[in-house]
């Protein structure tokens, strides 16, 4: 009988078991998270936690993997779309879904081996990373944006691998007071952030590639994590120089600040 994973045997003889044993949490099952979910199912991950309280809307159909017109009409939850998609690839998967923000089921995320963050705000990233650091969970974060440069749209995105003993997103300058302040000032402004399926696909694929390398070491990752920048206009992925100049260990989350907070 053909082994369904034989084409990825170069990842190492233990890879299939590693994927089967790992618990992966995906926070945000929108344009980026839906891509990630699909790929994890194909690769052979079995234990998945999905966090997203939203339902599919018409404006999601330009990018939400697995979503259909019926889902929009029926108000299907994004986690259920992802779950359906994954189980169609591999019915043996154990998928736990949380139709809410992850913070409302925060204890459930603690036993994830890796968190993949596909959220749409800097503030949300700040919260997830703080928890990931407390419980020594590697975090892979993806996101994209479209902004005007000289009046022309410019697509950009990032994939960041934040490791518990490496620089955090603040160390890397990605989470900074200016970005958080600008985001806070835009709160309540009408209209969603621009999103397109192909950029989400690129970023999600890179995130999944980092995840696989993290777990199997088939190629090997830099010791202090990764910060990749995607230029959606030139279609280039490059390593951000910020990771080169980031402190080797995190200055915001000291190594002894793990577990439940200790108040003095």
């Amino acid at each position: 009988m053909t082994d369904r994973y034989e084409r990825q045997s170069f990842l190492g003889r233990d890879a299939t078991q590693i994927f089967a044993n790992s618990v992966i949490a995906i926070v945000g099952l929108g344009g980026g998270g839906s891509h990630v979910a699909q790929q994890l199912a194909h690769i052979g991950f079995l234990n998945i936690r999905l966090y997203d309280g939203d339902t599919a809307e018409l404006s999601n159909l330009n990018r939400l993997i697995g979503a259909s017109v019926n889902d929009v009409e029926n108000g299907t939850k994004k986690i259920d779309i992802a779950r359906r998609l994954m189980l169609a690839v591999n019915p043996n998967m154990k998928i736990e879904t949380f139709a809410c923000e992850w913070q409302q089921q925060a204890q459930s995320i603690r036993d994830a081996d890796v968190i993949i963050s596909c959220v749409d705000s800097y503030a949300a990233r700040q919260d997830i990373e703080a928890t990931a650091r407390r419980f020594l969970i590697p975090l892979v974060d993806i996101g994209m944006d479209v902004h005007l440069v000289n009046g022309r749209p410019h697509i950009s995105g990032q994939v960041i691998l934040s490791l518990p003993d490496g620089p955090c997103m603040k160390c890397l300058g990605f989470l900074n007071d200016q970005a958080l302040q600008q985001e806070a000032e835009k709160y309540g402004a009408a209209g969603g952030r621009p999103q397109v399926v192909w950029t989400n696909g690129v970023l999600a694929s890179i995130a999944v590639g980092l995840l696989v390398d993290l777990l199997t070491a088939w190629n090997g990752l830099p010791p202090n994590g990764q910060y990749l920048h995607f230029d959606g206009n030139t279609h280039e992925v490059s390593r951000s120089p910020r990771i080169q100049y980031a402190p080797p260990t995190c200055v915001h989350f000291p190594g002894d600040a793990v577990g439940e907070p200790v108040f003095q």
Partner: protein
Amino acid sequence: MVSADNLQELRSLCPDAKQAAEGGIDFVLLPGLNLPAGCSPPSTDCLLCLGPRDGYDSRLFFAQVVSSREGRNWNGQNIRILERNWFAYSWRVPGGLRPIETLIAHLQALR
């Protein structure tokens, strides 16, 4: 970290005040802080954020949304800090104040 003197001052309003840091920012937990008259509930756990975060120079977080005489814009919902979920309204307080002055300035919004 908050100095012992500043923490002691805060304890004049909340005897069980204690501090912790997360993400490079200092926080002071104020268990069962009594809120201004007219608030419901009359007291609740609060978390005073003494560093710039989410676009504010400082911020006061609450364990639950509080109703007050003046309705406030509770634009912070389920914000996860120090392994609890918090809620906060939009209210700007200038920097450079002592922690107790910062706390009192934030509570002004509920008067």
